[in-house]
């Protein structure tokens, strides 16, 4: 689960990581009032959960509170990568003398957390790692003990030679690691972490992703997790309600399969035969007729889906349940679309019989089924 910058900064503040003075606003009058209270030039930052806000024009500076009002009007309501800006963070503009990068993330191949520090901030860290690896220091965190003092000292000394600043950075890294542990973070990042002309280290930007699998340990975040659904498309939202694993894609052939790997392979094979997948929909294991009905309806009712490939290899999923669900969905939905079904595995004979009786085409190989649906769609259905 991704947290907004303002939510992350609130947590930073609670743990004692310095952040700029600022407040959240959802209309331009509030923005002006905040700018008045701050009584200095402000930065107005759109709060959407995508990267590249700055480039998209979602972060702007206003010298006076009157300007803040008009500037915020140009940001509130704007669309950034498909998401509407509903809130802006209004912060004091910092007098920046230097920018750093600091993060703690999960490193899959090392099977541990790693702290990454860079002498250059406000950067694309992957790009920097390729171009100037000497500007980056990585410290892998020992899994049992957490981050240790000598490791934190090493990171601080890498970033600055000033003893004063090292102390501040040491404190910040320790606090960030506390947040990682308290919130089960997959990622916590400040990019940039800045040194101001007044000599303070401040997290000018803040980003945090929480491990979805840990949400049972964080009941106070579960409400928040529901709010995040607002950032989903209509069909992603509906799929989520039924507990399907679902992602919208930009093609026109809908896909229903069981298992994440098989669903991805179904998308790829549609593409391989010249079609374009419209979605990833994994019904999961052991789906009964009712779930299958909902999955099929979801794609039938999605206007961008022109045809559907159902690819089921049954283990704990039963062929008769799958077939019955599809037949029922076609009965209750007015929309007609080409649909090709590949159904094998547990109770495949029973399932195939149900489909045959309803006059629905089924095949036994995923390759032939994929080819067939691509042909049907490219010939105009």
């Amino acid at each position, binding site marked *: 689960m991704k947290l907004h910058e303002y939510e992350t900064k609130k947590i930073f503040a609670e743990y004692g990581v310095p952040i700029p003075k600022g407040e959240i606003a959802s209309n331009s009058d509030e923005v002006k009032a905040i700018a008045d209270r701050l009584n200095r030039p402000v930065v107005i930052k759109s709060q959407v959960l995508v990267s590249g806000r700055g480039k998209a024009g979602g972060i702007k500076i206003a010298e006076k509170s009157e300007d803040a009002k008009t500037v915020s009007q140009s940001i509130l309501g704007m669309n950034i990568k498909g998401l509407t800006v509903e809130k802006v963070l209004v912060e004091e503009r910092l007098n920046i003398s230097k920018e750093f990068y600091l993060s703690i993330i*999960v490193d*899959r*191949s090392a*099977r*541990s*957390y790693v702290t990454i520090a860079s002498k250059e901030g406000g950067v694309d*860290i*992957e790009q920097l790692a390729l171009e100037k690896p000497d500007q980056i220091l990585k410290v892998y965190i020992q*899994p*049992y003990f957490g981050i240790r003092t000598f490791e934190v000292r090493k990171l601080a000394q890498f970033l600055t030679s000033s003893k004063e600043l090292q102390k501040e950075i040491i404190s910040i890294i320790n606090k960030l690691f506390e947040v990682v*542990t308290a919130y*089960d973070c*997959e990622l916590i990042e400040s990019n940039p972490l800045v040194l101001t002309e007044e000599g303070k280290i401040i997290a000018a930007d803040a980003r945090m992703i929480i*491990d*979805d*699998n*840990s949400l*049972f*340990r964080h009941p106070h975040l579960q409400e928040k997790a529901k709010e995040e659904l607002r950032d989903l498309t209509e069909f992603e939202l509906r799929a989520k309600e039924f507990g399907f*694993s679902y*992602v919208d*894609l930009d093609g026109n052939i809908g896909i229903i*399969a*069981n*298992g*994440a*790997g*098989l*669903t*991805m*392979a179904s*998308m*790829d*094979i*549609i*593409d*391989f035969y010249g079609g374009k*997948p419209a979605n*990833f929909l*994994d019904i999961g*294991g052991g789906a009964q007729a009712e779930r299958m009905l909902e999955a099929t309806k979801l794609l039938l009712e999605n206007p961008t889906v022109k045809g559907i490939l159902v690819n089921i*290899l*049954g*283990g*704990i999923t039963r062929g008769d349940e799958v077939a019955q669900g599809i037949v029922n969905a076609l009965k209750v939905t007015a929309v007609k679309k080409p649909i090709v079904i590949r159904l*094998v*595995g*547990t109770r495949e004979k029973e399932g195939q019989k149900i489909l045959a009786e309803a006059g629905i085409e089924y095949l036994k*190989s*995923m*390759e032939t089924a994929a080819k067939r649906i691509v042909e049907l769609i490219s010939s105009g259905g």
Partner: protein
Amino acid sequence: MTILVDKNTKILVQGITGREGQFHTKVMLDYGTQIVAGVTPGKGGQELNGIPVYDFVSEAVEETQATASILFIPARFVADAVYEAIESNLNPIVVITEGIPIRDSIVFVNYARDKNIVIIGPNCPGIISPEECKVGVMPSHVFRKGPVGIIARSGTLFYEIAATLTAADSRLGQSTCVGIGGDPIIGSDFIEIVQRFQADPETKAVVIIGEIGGDAEERLADYIQDHKVKPIVAFIAGKTAPSDKRMGHAGAIISMGVGSAEGKINRLKEVGIQVADVPSDVAKILVDVLNI
């Protein structure tokens, strides 16, 4: 020969009295797996399908000499159950459960590795050595004994490809198949299982079923560059997956520019691995590779 488990391996089922545990214990027993004990805290003293149930792993091991474990335990209790299995030296430990917090997996996976104990999973279908033993949840009928080893990150796609091998040619049966799991942090990766197949005289070729996310396939390619391995055929799922979207598995996500299918396929091809375009091509390439 098989790797990791065979018909003589004595298996303990942790979480044997739960719905999944009960169901799969029965199926594994029917397959011929030697399940000797079960553990569910608070349910010690019962018997299920003729298998004695204990409160503690240590008791079960003492009474039955179990040597390996499979876990059907809810995500929030998995870490503790794994530690219990590790302290009794059970090896391998197969963790089927999906949805375990990463912070838990990081600690128990490292602890097991430090003790030289193999963890398979989490979030995996387990291990099957066809016609010998099954320590997992895969549908048995798609497998048959033979010379091909399979290592997969996914479940259903793994069964799909195993089924095409089994159906395609009687000489494409399998020695052992290992579902290593779809989580970002897993106990065993491709390289370690490839090494085991390397040491197994009956395995003649290895199938790798990878997917987007992480760099396990790339690291395997690095390994192959410097080491002698048996012929490998790969299939990688997720060529059409977008960035920053989780595709079902917790670990199936292209993130910060790392983990695209294209990158994995290119890297594997660079070191001479044949990568199938569609799942059914794996069998065709294998026939070629095995020269049969």
